[in-house]
């Protein structure tokens, strides 16, 4: 209970002033390569104010389906990216997305660490049953990172993307609660007999 679940070994998950976040998002948006790895929408450019409006609106929701975190390095306290989790409460399933806008921090394990912190949050705090993600076939670095964090391939959406005249696949990966517990060496706690009956 005393673990700080927002803390990884190289990064931590934080909440930021929406104005600060909007500022970096607007800057990262102008990096075409980053945007082509991030999602399947045509890259678009927005004012800092417009982006801040979206973040504010998202934060106002009382029963959020989406959990947005900023990612900061432990060393130097640099804001390098973000993580977002979209939860389907009824089925205990969530989609996760991650983006490191600061290219200097690519390929060094920062993203993997952030994802591991997010998975612990998903399973230990939100009590989800599984987490899902999609990754583009031309992003092997991210695929390796997700595999390292424990995600398993579950299939591919064939030729879902249409970019630069090419049809590309999106790989779907998932991790189950049971897999995460096992990899983390956490024994599922059995409820002692009689406890649940006593609550009736």
């Amino acid at each position: 209970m005393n673990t700080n679940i927002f803390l990884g070994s190289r990064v931590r998950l934080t909440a930021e002033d929406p104005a600060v976040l909007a500022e970096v998002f607007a800057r990262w948006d102008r990096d075409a390569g980053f945007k082509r790895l991030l999602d399947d929408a045509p890259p678009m450019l927005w004012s800092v104010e417009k982006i801040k409006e979206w973040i504010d609106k998202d934060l106002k929701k009382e029963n959020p389906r989406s959990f947005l975190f900023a990612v900061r390095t432990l060393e130097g306290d640099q804001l390098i990216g973000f993580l977002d989790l979209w939860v389907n409460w009824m089925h205990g399933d969530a989609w996760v997305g991650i983006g490191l806008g600061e290219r200097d921090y690519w390929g060094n394990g920062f993203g993997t660490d952030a994802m591991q912190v997010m998975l612990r949050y998903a399973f230990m705090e939100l009590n989800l049953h599984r987490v899902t993600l999609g990754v583009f076939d031309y992003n092997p670095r991210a695929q390796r990172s997700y595999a390292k964090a424990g995600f398993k391939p579950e299939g591919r959406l064939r030729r879902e993307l249409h970019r630069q005249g090419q049809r590309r696949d999106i790989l779907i990966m998932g991790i189950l609660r049971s897999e995460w517990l096992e990899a983390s060496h956490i024994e599922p706690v059995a409820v002692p007999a009689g406890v649940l009956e006593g609550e009736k």
Partner: protein
Amino acid sequence: MDIDKPLFAGSLICLAPIDREKDAEIESRWTHDAAYMRMLDTEPARPLSPPQLKKRYEAIEKAMDKDKNLYYFTIRLREDDRLVGFARLHRIGWTNGYASIQLGIGDPADRRKGYGREALSLLLRYAFEELNLYRLAVQIPEYNQPGLALFQEAGFQIEVRRREAVQREARRWDLLHLALLKDEWSAGPHASLYEARN
């Protein structure tokens, strides 16, 4: 170019617009059948009253009119125009040329008669030849075997198995993602399903 090539009419059924007043009464009855609702999707099953459905029809037509990312049809019998189901293309991504597809035949007595199969073949042709989409996807929980058979027969391939993604009746089920690409549809016998049987 054959301007009279049927677009909305099959041999048994046709794709038709919503009739807000009459359809709401019938569809409300379908939504009180939990098995139907659970086959349709993974949203919480709940019955809907005729007024709720009328509101939904308004919202559907508004989205079709304004957002242009939804194409919704009712399925009616050709002989008497009776409502038997619905079919839709939704979550359309125009830049990538993809959409999700969904259809339902509401009354169990209307199932296994080829209505769904014919509606699907009409909707596929509409999606590929009119909307010029490239890829159609559908998500089916593994417990919906009739739905799975219908889409596989139409040429859809299972692409993804999201393990244990659905929780129903105190157990976990896999969620299957299927898709059909335009090339596959054009090359297959499915493109001419309607013509072949006429």
